[in-house]
């Protein structure tokens, strides 16, 4: 039994299985894809991907494969290079499991969509691009996957392209991702000119990596993973259908930026400035997103900001020099976030398109499975002990508390953790409990196995994934084992405080007090005034600068005012003044003659 060969073959078979629905219409005559076949394909792929994962867990087997080489120049070759290490071998089954559940859910959610097969094919293409990104060993292949997920995100967010907000949101996603791509290309250019290769392994032996490529990588992660500064596209991306939000904008695409930083971690390890930058940026993103989520009323936007906040937390983990822990958080986060989105999709469809939580309530009795899983997801998100989120989130908070770092970053992250609890409980309370605030003319029915099976499967994952992953994969760095009791229980204490705050605030909503406007409420509900400020300011400034330079400076100024026309104007002015004197009468001429002689005489004697 040649086990390395089995590892290789099974990984490549996973990818090949995913390609079959895309290639079969070209190869087989009269072949028609259908949503259920695509879902079965992904399920098969998931089952196949369990084999390499098992080989890794039991034997620690990792692999790098070189295929064909693209000989770009004589000394610069770009091979097709797959790296099957801990990260890609663990990510494949998780991503495929989540995608399988989402596709099963989509067969119910988008059942009335006339182009449902095309939607499934888009989702499949996205998945292939994401897996390419994960398994890539050189930056070129990673970039192919990177751009692939960006484009599929654009196509999928703007799926209902008749809606103007969907088009704007898709455009926003592409533009912000593009700004991040500039950072990626900067890093690629630097490594091509300095190391003459795009292999990620060749970047690690450097003792002290200069700051420039790391800034490029951090910019790329900021763009793709919606850190503060390039974040507005993630809440806007909720314009896409719920399966898109569940797959792209919670589990897979947005973690691509963090994944890039995990892959290139040896470069970051030696540069403390870059690590501090990651730390502070992550802390700021997590707090900002958590603050914005507190006053949102759209259920999908709350979950989107929750994703943004967790991405900030992952960035903080990278800043703590703990890439494995960040990857653990990515894995556990995928389960409960996808489940939260699927639950929200079920709620939205069952309430006939209602997305405002102020118009939901009392759903615990009518949608029992969905709301139970919503509760499980929220508890996992908050880091309830021994659910999935606990294993990653609690470890992150413990590591933060016991390491020598910026106190501001620490306090921001702790505040964001308590806000996470607050908005999760607020969402649960408003959606599930209390009296019904929906219209009475809806038909609520969640008895379709296409809804309940994916959600319960993901719930199972949310409960057990943390335990399973930490049991089977040993950490490369020893986690901190000894700390004071207060430090150990910090995460739980602040989560409980957040829950108490939410419960207290929900009591306020039952009394009929008119809500007053105050600056903090305005800040939170307008998402920190970021969107109008940057979107309007930057474009108007760019356009006015362009107008000033092109039109005013060059055309008007040089060619008109200071060039030929200016000369003509000058001459005209002089001519106009002297015309009144040139009357043609001798008297005036002689008078000016005498005057000039006088002036000459006076000036010559002095």
């Amino acid at each position, binding site marked *: 039994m040649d086990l390395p060969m089995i590892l290789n073959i099974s990984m490549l078979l996973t990818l090949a299985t995913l390609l079959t629905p895309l290639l079969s219409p070209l190869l087989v005559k009269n072949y028609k894809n259908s949503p259920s076949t695509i879902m079965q394909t992904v399920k098969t792929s998931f089952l196949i991907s369990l084999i390499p994962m098992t080989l890794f867990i039991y034997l620690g087997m990792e692999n790098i494969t070189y295929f064909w080489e693209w000989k770009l120049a004589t000394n610069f070759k770009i091979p097709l290079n797959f790296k099957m290490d801990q990260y890609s071998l663990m990510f494949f089954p998780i991503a495929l499991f989540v995608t399988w559940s989402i596709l099963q859910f989509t067969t119910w959610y988008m059942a009335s969509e006339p182009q449902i097969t095309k939607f499934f094919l888009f989702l499949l293409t996205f998945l292939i691009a994401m897996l390419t990104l994960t398994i890539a060993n050189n930056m070129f292949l990673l970039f192919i996957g990177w751009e692939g997920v960006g484009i599929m995100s654009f196509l999928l967010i703007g799926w209902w392209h008749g809606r103007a907000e969907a088009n704007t949101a898709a455009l926003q996603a592409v533009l912000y991702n593009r700004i991040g791509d500039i950072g990626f290309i900067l890093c690629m250019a630097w490594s091509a000119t300095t190391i003459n290769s795009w292999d990620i392994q060749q970047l690690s032996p450097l003792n002290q990596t200069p700051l420039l490529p790391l800034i490029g990588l951090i910019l790329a992660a900021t763009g793709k993973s919606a850190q503060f500064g390039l974040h507005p596209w993630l809440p806007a991306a909720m314009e896409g259908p719920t399966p898109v939000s569940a797959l792209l904008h919670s589990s897979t695409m947005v973690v691509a930026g963090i994944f890039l930083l995990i892959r290139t971690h040896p470069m970051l390890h030696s540069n403390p400035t870059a690590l501090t930058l990651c730390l502070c940026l992550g802390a700021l993103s997590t707090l900002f997103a958590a603050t914005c989520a507190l006053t949102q009323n759209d259920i999908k936007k709350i979950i989107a900001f929750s994703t943004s906040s967790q991405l900030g937390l992952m960035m903080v983990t990278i800043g703590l020099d703990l890439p494995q822990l960040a990857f653990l958080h990515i894995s556990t986060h995928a389960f409960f976030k996808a489940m939260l989105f699927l639950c929200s999709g079920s709620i939205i469809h069952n309430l006939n398109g209602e997305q405002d939580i102020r118009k939901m309530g009392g759903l615990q009795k009518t949608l029992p499975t969905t709301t139970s899983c919503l509760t499980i997801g929220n508890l996992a998100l908050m880091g309830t002990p021994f659910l999935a989120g606990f294993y990653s989130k609690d470890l992150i908070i413990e590591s933060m508390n016991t390491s020598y770092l910026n106190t501001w970053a620490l306090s921001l992250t702790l505040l964001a953790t308590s806000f996470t609890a607050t908005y999760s409980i607020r969402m649960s309370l408003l959606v599930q409990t209390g009296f019904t605030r929906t219209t009475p003319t809806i038909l609520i029915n969640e008895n379709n196995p296409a809804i309940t099976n994916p959600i319960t499967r993901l719930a199972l994952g949310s409960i057990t994934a943390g335990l399973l992953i930490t049991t089977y994969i040993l950490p490369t760095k020893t986690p901190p084992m000894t700390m004071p009791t207060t430090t150990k229980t910090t995460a739980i204490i602040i989560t409980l405080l957040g829950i108490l705050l939410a419960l207290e605030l929900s009591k306020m909503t039952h009394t009929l007090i008119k809500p007053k406007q105050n600056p903090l409420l305005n800040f939170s509900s307008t998402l920190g005034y970021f969107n109008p400020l940057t979107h309007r300011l930057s474009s108007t400034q760019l356009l006015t600068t362009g107008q000033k330079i092109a039109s005013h400076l060059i055309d008007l100024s040089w060619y008109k005012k200071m060039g030929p026309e200016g000369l003509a104007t000058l001459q005209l002015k002089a001519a106009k003044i002297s*015309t009144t004197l*040139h009357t*043609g*009468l*001798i*008297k005036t001429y*002689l*008078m000016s003659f*005498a005057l000039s*002689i006088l002036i000459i005489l006076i000036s010559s004697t002095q």
Partner: protein
Amino acid sequence: MTFLHLSFYSAFTLSSLGLAFHRIHLISALLCLESMMLSMYMALSTWPAQTQTTSPSLTPILMLTFSACEAGIGLAILVASSRTHGSDHLHNLNLLQC
């Protein structure tokens, strides 16, 4: 400067001012021109006498010749003007006025 020079300069200056500021009659301008010529003649005549050089003795005669021509032309203009317009008023010479 000496009293002699003062007389020359003052005569010339007053005549040139008179030429510049004549108002009604052309003939007053011509008279001023004549007086300018006269003062220049006297200056040119006393110059070789003062500096005891004999070479420039010819210059007053030359100047007289030219001034005679110029006076003749001036009088011709006067006569032409009085023949066409009936008087020598200066406001008749307005062909170049814009």
